[in-house]
């Protein structure tokens, strides 16, 4: 052999973890992608339930949160604020729903976007928990956190990655 012979290190490069496999356009939709999309839909469902619960208890929530300020609950602004919150939440949920469907269809960018937001959400919850501000019990906090982490696990898996990038022209063909 004319090439330089280098000693092989005792470990493989960690960059292997970031290595994408070859693209395979004929790949079948893996279980991980289906689970990831289903979990995103579940999160939309949980968000919808949360919004409905918020609307049902709106006056209590307002009174609870803003009890320092003398708020008149009969003020029409209170009702308008509810609609404002519902509209924002609804739009976010619809976007999340669309992302879930796009992930199921095998697009890559919605997968990345969803994982970025899950990462931020998990990190935020973790910091609050670590600082001791937030206790995480078997209620909605743990449920939403578990959903976020399961979404991360499913969508970051190699199978989901390979499926989302099955048509990526930058990857070598299978």
């Amino acid at each position, binding site marked *: *052999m004319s*090439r330089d012979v280098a000693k*092989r290190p*005792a*470990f*493989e*490069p*960690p*960059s*292997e*973890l*970031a*290595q*994408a*496999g*070859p693209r*395979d356009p004929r*790949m*079948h939709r893996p*279980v991980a992608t*289906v689970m990831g999309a289903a979990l995103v839909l579940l999160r939309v469902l949980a968000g919808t339930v949360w919004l409905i619960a918020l609307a049902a208890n709106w006056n209590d929530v307002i009174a609870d949160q803003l009890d320092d300020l003398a708020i008149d609950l009969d003020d029409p602004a209170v009702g308008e604020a509810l609609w404002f919150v519902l509209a924002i939440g609804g739009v976010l949920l619809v976007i999340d729903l669309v992302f879930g469907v796009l992930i199921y269809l095998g697009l*890559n960018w919605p997968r*990345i976007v969803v*994982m970025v937001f899950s*990462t931020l959400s*998990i990190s935020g919850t*973790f910091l609050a928990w670590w600082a001791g501000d937030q206790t*995480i*019990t*078997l209620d909605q906090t*743990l449920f939403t*956190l*578990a959903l*976020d*982490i*399961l979404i*991360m*696990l499913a*969508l*970051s*898996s*190699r199978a989901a*990655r390979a499926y989302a*990038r099955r048509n990526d022209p*930058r990857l*070598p*063909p*299978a």
Partner: protein
Amino acid sequence: MMSVPPSSPGSAEHGGRRPSGYDAGMGGADAGGNGATIEPVRRRFSLNALLDGFFFVFAGLASVWLAYLLLTESFSFGWWGILVFIAFWLVLAYLVLPRLHRILTTIYVPDYFMGRTRTSDGLLGDPVNLALLGDDAQLLAAMAAAKWTRADEVTLRSSWRIVMSTLTRRSYDEAPVSPLFLFGRKQDYAFQQEVEGNPAKRHHVRFWRCPEGWLLPGGARVDWLAAGTFDRAVGLSLFTLQVTHKIDADTDVERNHIVATLTAADPAITVSVLADFSTGYHSRNGGGDTIRTDGDLPVVDLRAVAVADAASPAEPAAASAPGGAGGAASVTGGTP
């Protein structure tokens, strides 16, 4: 010395799957030449790949936290805590440990041939205990003639079916086998024989096509490597904490069974033995089962198998060309 023909389709296919893997490890044979199809050795990482790598590790760490939260919560819920504890076990065994194993073995387990397959988590799996000579069609024809059944692909449906058939002890002759990896690739073909209609017990063997120009340690050239083991029961692995098939420790019995069924079905098949090929290897498989072997590697020569004659009575689909009528032979290339 070993060399890879610069741009043969085979080397493009196998080398392209794992640019840094076997070919490079076995002497840097793909360092140049077929740059049209293989990533250059000096890899560039896109933002996408870096993000994917980050998310892969981040999700693993986050899942450790989730498992911890579930464990601590399970103590504070009385009898309902048992359900939370089961959730903890499921998260630990099926999500956390596989991801951690995947991250650590990617770095710590050397990525070259060592006579062992690897599980999808990167752990060492069943031993390679059989080699074959011949092409795709001859392998499929010989296995069909020897009364072996192609295993179904692992899908949601087939996974559900194997769970139900195990619980109800109903026969599932085409039950899927878990993927094992060699040369950085999932098996190309998996075959099995169910024993007494009980899905918990089965003979099974997985085949990998060797990369073009690849030689066994010692210099012998073979077309296929195979790992055959006997599933004796379904149980909890204390190694991965998952419910899996337990394999019979004496892998030689299964190896000899495969060779015997092949040679009995077709007198054109001959066998030579590389004695003490794997005597130096010993250990456990990915499920923590011990294995014993005399270390011999039989090389089954299928090159004299007449494809049309051998296959047509037993399984017509196996004789059709790759991509043919939806049958056994239609899944080629190793990544169905």
